[in-house]
């Protein structure tokens, strides 16, 4: 409270000078951080509010509720001050609010599934968005030509620009809705991957048409420049991301002395990749996604457990806050005087968005199914089409339109808002019952067991082997090749103590730790060790354990309380798997081994073999 007090006013006599202020109020000094904090606090309180009534989030996705809160707030501000509430600043959105969400999504993306379906995702993202943009643009232009609607002043290029900004499927909205409905991973990755990858083409189309609108003549060379631009935007963004991802991994190799700032590097490098890409007008979303996916594998092995937890929690927190703020701002910005309502334009926009999306998905799927081994069924197609939600990205893009070139900007804003509200509310709410009605395959939330991991691994090798035998370079071939390259060069360079780990072994060790903890807690640690391996070493068969022990073990195994570091896909941003207390676990293991050896000596029934269930 030591801010600048009011300066003593120059007064006539000495008796009228102002005394020392006991209590001052200096709002302008803290206005900006104060308001930001209030907004974030409000957003978080709203979230708590929703979850109080536990059924609510399952019926209505949070995004809808947040928009409603925003609308309410906007209405209050509008009513109180009689002017339009602060519109979400596009810069704030693109530079501060969007990156955390994409980072979170990219960091926890199931890479294997993503790359297996990469062709399809790419196909939908690029060709699909192009199809939608041009289709919507041209059909809207056709509507505008009808003079009865009073839209004849909107040119073809303006329509195409509008089409390109409204056809982009939005990752924020998709995440918000798909999180709760738990469709199978394949479907999820198709829709979500598409929403990420289409950023490249959206950026290109938006800038292209915007420049075209402002240029006098358009030559053929400009169109070719546009196509070249697409490749540069996409590939450039990815390259920046990968490069910075490697740098980040390399940096974390040396951070073992200063563990405390390890998480910082992850966030700094990924944010750096985003803004570097934005600096060159490349695709920031693809950059940050590529950075996160690259960084993930190596950083994980270099950082400490605590840093890893911090990274995970902080990332989820940031993305959660961002998402909430985005939706609230969308609600707030809707209220105000930025609108121009035209029945024809708005309703036809909505109609065309839906029609072209459905058509696009259907036609594209017929083509891509030829190249896929597992063709996409009609149900899948329906969910993909239905899950094409629009969100804050097109919202911000439309606010960025220069009003000088677009005299009907307000009309566009209104149309965009209507489409967003429709997709988020109607499609968002109805997708869950539809998924259940259509009986779409849901995700298998079962935690893997050791035997499953073994089977999967075994199976991968069989598949690779067969592919080698019949001479086919399938996915497994490339994945194998990359793994070899990775093991030979990349891991040596980027990871501190490079011990090639087997996922089976790490999984097994985690299981044993958990098992040991449970046994310690249930007081079984001093009892007879599992006689399974001890006796069958001689007989080659498994003898049952003592009933209590068997019961205990079976309970543990069937409860599937395995905590596996990172390898499960975590889509739900509200819950994070807890981490085992490693130090305590190791203590327990040491004690257990001692007790095993003790009981061995006591029973004296076996030779001096080491108990088979011990491990390092």
């Amino acid at each position: 409270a030591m801010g600048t007090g009011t300066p003593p006013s120059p007064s006539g006599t000495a008796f009228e000078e102002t005394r020392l202020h006991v209590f001052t109020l200096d709002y302008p000094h803290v206005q900006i951080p104060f308001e930001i904090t209030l907004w974030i606090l409000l957003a978080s309180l709203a979230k708590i509010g929703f979850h109080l009534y536990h059924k609510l989030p399952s019926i209505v996705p949070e995004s809808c509720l947040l928009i409603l809160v925003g609308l309410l707030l906007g209405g209050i501000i509008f009513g109180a001050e009689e002017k339009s509430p602060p519109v979400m600043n596009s810069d704030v959105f693109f530079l501060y609010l969007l990156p955390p969400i994409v980072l979170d999504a990219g960091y926890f993306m199931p890479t294997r599934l993503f790359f297996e379906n990469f062709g399809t995702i790419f196909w939908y993202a690029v060709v699909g968005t192009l199809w939608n943009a041009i289709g919507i643009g041209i059909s809207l232009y056709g509507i505008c030509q009808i003079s009865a609607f009073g839209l004849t002043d909107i040119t073809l290029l303006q329509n195409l620009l509008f089409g390109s900004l409204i056809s982009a499927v939005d990752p924020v909205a998709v995440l918000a809705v798909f999180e709760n409905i738990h469709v199978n991973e394949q479907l999820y990755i198709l829709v979500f991957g598409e929403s990420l990858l289409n950023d490249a083409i959206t950026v290109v189309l938006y800038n292209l048409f915007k420049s075209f609108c402002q240029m006098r003549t358009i030559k053929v060379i400009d169109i070719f420049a546009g196509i070249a631009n697409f490749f540069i935007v996409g590939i450039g963004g990815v390259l920046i991301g990968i490069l910075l991802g490697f740098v980040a991994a390399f940096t974390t190799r040396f951070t073992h002395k200063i563990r405390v700032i390890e998480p910082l590097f992850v966030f700094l490098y990924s944010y750096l990749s985003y803004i570097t890409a934005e600096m060159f007008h490349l695709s920031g979303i693809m950059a940050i996604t590529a950075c996160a996916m690259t960084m993930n594998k190596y950083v994980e092995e270099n950082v400490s457990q605590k840093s890893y937890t911090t990274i995970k929690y902080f990332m989820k927190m940031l993305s959660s806050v961002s998402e909430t703020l985005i939706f609230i701002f969308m609600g707030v910005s809707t209220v105000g005087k930025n609108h121009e309502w035209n029945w024809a334009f708005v309703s036809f926009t909505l109609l065309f968005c839906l029609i072209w999306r459905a058509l696009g998905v259907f036609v594209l799927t017929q083509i891509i199914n030829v190249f896929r081994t597992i063709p996409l069924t009609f149900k899948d197609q329906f969910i993909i089409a239905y899950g094409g939600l629009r969100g804050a990205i097109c919202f911000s893009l439309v606010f960025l339109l220069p009003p000088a070139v677009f005299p009907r900007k307000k009309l566009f804003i209104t149309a965009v808002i209507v489409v967003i509200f429709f997709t988020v509310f109607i499609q968002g709410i109805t997708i869950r019952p539809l998924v259940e009605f259509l009986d779409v395959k849901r995700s298998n939330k079962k935690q893997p067991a050791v035997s499953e991991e073994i089977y999967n691994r075994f199976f991968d090798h069989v598949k690779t082997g067969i592919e080698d035998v019949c001479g086919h370079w399938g996915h497994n071939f490339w994945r194998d090749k990359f793994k070899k390259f990775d093991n030979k060069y990349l891991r040596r360079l980027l990871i501190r103590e490079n011990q090639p780990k087997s996922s089976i072994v790490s999984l097994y060790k985690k299981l044993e730790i958990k098992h040991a903890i449970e046994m310690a807690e249930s007081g079984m640690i001093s009892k007879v060790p599992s006689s399974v391996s001890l006796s069958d070493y001689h007989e080659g068969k498994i003898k049952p354990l003592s009933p209590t022990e068997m019961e205990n073990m079976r309970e543990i195994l069937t409860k599937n309380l395995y905590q596996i570091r990172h390898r499960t896909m975590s889509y739900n941003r509200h819950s994070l798997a807890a981490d085992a207390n490693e130090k305590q676990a190791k203590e327990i293991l040491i004690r257990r081994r001692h007790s095993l050896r003790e009981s061995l000596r006591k029973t004296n029934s076996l030779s001096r073999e080491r108990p088979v269930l011990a491990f390092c």
Partner: protein
Amino acid sequence: VPWASAPVPSLFSLAVTSEQIEHLHRRFKQLSQDQLTIRKENFDSIPDLEFNPIRGKIVHAFFDKRNLRQESDGLADEINFEDFLTIMSYFRPIEMNMDEEQLDRFRKEKLKFLFHMYDSDHDGKITLQEYRNVVEELLSGNPHLEKESARSIADGAMMEAASICVGQMGPDQVYEGITFEDFLKMWQGIDIETKMHVRFLNVDTIAHCY
């Protein structure tokens, strides 16, 4: 062309085009060095297979008579193109127009193939020793791991299998090994039909042999 006269196994005729058969035949000739049959030694000429930790089991699977749908048991010494195609047929992708029964049979076939790979002594059960063998082979590519780890992992997995398949075991019961029915139970959650396939679509991508 000698292969033209060999009858194509009936299962295969459903899904595979003649183009794919041609591709496989070309590959067969490469492996057999233009002979009519392949022996185990011919598989040594595939360079990438060397790095595969379960190479032995894969090669073995080609000569396993149970996979070749022959009534007898044991190992064949050599296989001809028809047998080669039979083995490949286990890896064909599912089709859209298959009904429930066909899918089920399809799935059982694929799982039986895998089961035979685990069950090396052909007694219809996967015993603890065989399971250990598999895990050891799987982890053999990793020089840092001790045999003890592999063993304990196999034991843990076997216990899991026992708990899933048999449930409550009495004090005198002994769990002999995983039978095929138990095996089916364990793979219930995983949709093997969609994963276990190899695309022989591309005729151009032929990896070379030595």
